[in-house]
């Protein structure tokens, strides 16, 4: 049996746990995989190889700033806390959402709404970090963000595009952390243009010629000592060059889409991000995060949230339809959420403030059963009255949908085992 090691998955374990990275690799090489050296981390490698074949992927649509649940998925038209926002019917009888999301209402049969999200963190960066990693930030452990964990567990290491792409940077989104820079997101600021520094500045011939010269000079340099550094650098440049010269780079170019498709997604930056996400997943990228900003509506909440909803509503619905039509929805989980919710009481500036105690999120695809609502809030929206879903429950549910073992342990640099998700339970009814 042969095992391909994700070279970035070589977790360094310090002396507290006996093996170090190279020793670990050597141990495996010597003893073979079937032998007993497989206690903690290589079983997952085997598992990941299988998962890749299943082609699981995830698109995280992140609403940075914390969207108001009252103006999106949990309207309260009968109560003073609900403000002017109306509830509208959806494609699923019995489920109503805010009038700000008419397109989404039409695809409700694909969506599993969770109205009982809750956490204890109400500061943007910390809460955002918590929702992305499952942990509050600490100085001692750099927790990997969800996309890094999923890429680490699921992605094919030989894939020539980055496995984790983030469209638009955000505060508190975290990165590869203890998994290493190899699992950091590849960040794009503008989804409507190809990524920066991927256009070669010379002819392809001359580019190859340069790479050849670089290889020769580095090879000569390696004979004088630092062989490992030269080897690492060579692999990195090979990967980068492979990416730049890959025919799959077209996946980054949404201009290749038909006019009809582009119109179906709409015109906002977020729409471009959603369309790009679909193209990337289709080309084999494992995890795409698309960020929408501006949801921190301390003033004029209803008005501003309505505008923001208009920028995400059509693309979100189009994305789900598009994935379904292409037969990709079953294997692609689409998560729509922000870092917390907003206060039931409307403040003096017609805004809503931070409220982590009860808010909403939406899941679709990846085996999730659409057309259902999980959890409930009280008529005033202030508390959860049914089936609370915490942050770790949510992350565990996403892992479940992607076939990722949430109990898998990675090692921090001082040898502390860190689970992908510590605690929490899968929201099993989401998949029922």
């Amino acid at each position: 049996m042969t095992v391909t090691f994700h070279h970035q998955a070589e977790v360094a374990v310090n002396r507290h746990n006996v093996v170090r990275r190279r020793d670990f690799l050597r141990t495996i090489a010597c003893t073979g995989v079937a032998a007993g050296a497989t206690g903690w981390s290589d079983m997952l490698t085997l598992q990941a190889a299988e998962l890749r074949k299943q082609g699981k992927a995830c698109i995280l649509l992140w609403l940075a700033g914390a969207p108001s649940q009252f103006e999106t998925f949990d309207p309260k038209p009968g109560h003073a806390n609900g403000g002017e926002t109306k509830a509208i019917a959806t494609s699923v009888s019995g489920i109503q959402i805010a009038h700000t999301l008419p397109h989404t209402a039409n695809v409700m049969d694909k969506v599993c709404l969770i109205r009982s999200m809750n956490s204890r963190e109400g500061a943007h960066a910390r809460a955002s970090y918590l929702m992305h990693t499952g942990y509050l930030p600490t100085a001692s452990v750099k927790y990997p963000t969800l996309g890094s964990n999923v890429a680490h567990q699921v992605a094919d290491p030989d894939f020539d595009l980055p496995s984790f792409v983030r469209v638009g940077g955000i505060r508190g989104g975290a990165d590869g952390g203890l998994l290493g820079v190899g699992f950091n997101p590849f960040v794009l600021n503008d989804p409507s243009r190809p990524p920066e520094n991927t256009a070669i500045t010379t002819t392809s011939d001359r580019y190859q010629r340069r790479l050849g010269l670089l290889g020769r000079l580095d090879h000569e340099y390696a004979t004088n000592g630092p062989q490992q550094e030269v080897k690492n650098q060579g692999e990195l440049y090979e990967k980068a060059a492979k990416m730049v010269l890959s025919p799959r780079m077209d996946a980054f170019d949404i201009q290749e889409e038909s006019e009809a498709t582009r119109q179906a997604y709409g015109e906002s930056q977020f729409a471009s991000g959603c369309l790009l996400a679909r193209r990337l997943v289709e080309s084999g990228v494992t995890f795409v995060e698309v960020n929408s900003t501006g949801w921190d509506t301390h003033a004029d909440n209803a008005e501003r949230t309505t505008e923001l909803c208009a920028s995400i509503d059509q693309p979100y619905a189009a994305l789900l339809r598009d994935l379904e039509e292409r037969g990709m929805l079953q294997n692609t989980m689409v998560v729509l959420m922000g870092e917390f919710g907003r206060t039931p009481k409307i403040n003096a500036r017609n805004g809503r403030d931070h409220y982590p105690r009860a808010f909403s999120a939406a899941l679709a695809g990846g085996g999730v059963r659409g057309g259902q609502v999980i959890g409930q809030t009280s008529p005033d929206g202030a508390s959860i009255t049914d089936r609370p879903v915490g942050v770790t429950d949510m992350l565990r549910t996403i892992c479940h949908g992607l076939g990722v073992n949430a109990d898998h342990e990675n090692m921090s640099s001082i040898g502390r085992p860190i689970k992908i998700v510590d605690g929490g339970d899968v929201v099993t009814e989401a998949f029922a």
Partner: protein
Amino acid sequence: MSSLLQRDRRLSRVACTLLMLVASAAVAEDSALKTATEVDRLLAARVAPPPAPSAGRVDDPTFLRRTFLDLVGELPTADDVLAFSLDDSPEKRNKLVETLLADSAFGENWGRYWRDVILYRRTEERALISRVALTDFLAKQFNDNASWAEIATSFMTATGNIRENGATALIMAQSGMPEDVTAEVSRIFLGIQIQCAQCHDHPTDRWKREQFHQLAAFFPRIAIRPDRNAEQPTFHVVVNDQPFRFQRRNNNNNRYRGTLEHRMPDLADPSAEGQLMQPVFFVTGSTLPSGTRDADRRNTLAEWITAPDNPWFAKAYVNRIWSELVGEGFYEPIDDLGPDRECSAPETLDYLAQRFADSGYDTKWLFRTIMATDAYQLESRSRRDYDEVPFRANCPQRLRGDQLFDALLSALDLESRTPQRSRGAMGYRRGGDPRSTFNLAFGYDPSDPRVEIGGSIQQALVMMNAPFINQGISARRPDGLGALLQANPQDEEALVELYLKVLARGPSPTEKQTCLDYIRQVGERHEAFEDITWSLINSTEFIHRN
């Protein structure tokens, strides 16, 4: 090399100081050199017979580049290389170290280093506001040769505006949360990761959960308060010594006000008040009474931490600086020391740490000493395997973001403003000035084990394809490569100059042959030299300090 001598040039940094030093005859301090000799003896005594031969003594150009990058974070110029190689004084390496220690770039380089140590572990993003004040504060301290005890004390006892007092950055980086500040103080100044005991007694450590919270009891009265009235939004590290009626913790979980005493949470009942903790310093067991004012708490703790009877303070600093200079710490990771950790050469570290404490925690003395050791002056080899003998070679270190940025500027004759024009193309939103923008892509946490710091695809893409770099290597520029080619009509001379400028050494005979063959094969001089320049700045050697 004769063409080098004929050029019209300014006097280099090395040339100037060599002249100065010949006059003053000031050589590296005796105590540093004696200590260095003893360090080498202790290291050699540790392993006999040596199972693998040590690397040889590093040659002059490599020593020069290594020392420049280590002390001032910059590449030596071609003139520096020349002046150094022409100096035949046996003391020239020590003199070089003295020269660079006296250069203000020394403080700046190490100021940036410690800025990264503190800010890469921030849990509060807005601590970046203090970045400039922090770097300036540190640079001044290092250039004034403030003792490490003095610097550490400033961080532990700081109050005030984070834009004005850089020493507040450590507390700001952890939002003034007592537990997080405690963990960082212990990690950075003692090299002890006592926060592992925050939630439970650690199975392999002797520190108990109670001891962590007793240490946190030195910091309950501090907090971070936003200042929205200031011209630029800022924060203050504030102190609260007065009892107050309401615990002001809002929905956002921000902590704007300190509490009088620290309480250890009840694990069984997190909503309970928790157990009152008295301030106790776990290393010595020294105790302060509950009710002590904040200033006394933090000043006393700083005194205890920096006192000579606490060996961990000196060891943590020596281990870190040794690791940066020699390439590997006595303890790894470099901020995880303690009685339950394995040290690869305990006698050597004990001796060096003791001498460092004796020197009054003189930071320049430590650099002088380590850089005079044979261990520092060995050639570099790739990081050893775990079961190989340590300190048989120096070890290549990946350049930090700031070092690489400066290296690019000098190798390509770029003004620091040039990358700003192509900032959009660099692809990073935060940052602001070109250096910070560059650091977002190339910086790393200096406390992380170096074996885990690899390059990223995005970094490789910048180096290969970024417009500012490709404009920088253009032979059509009036300066940079264009000027170099014009001044050196012979390819071989031009090649030597280019190597000196980019790699601070001349090409080896094989390299020369490879490049001359390449030039012939390409057939167009400008194009060939652009390609060579591109290859040199993308080389493994360029992004490492060897």
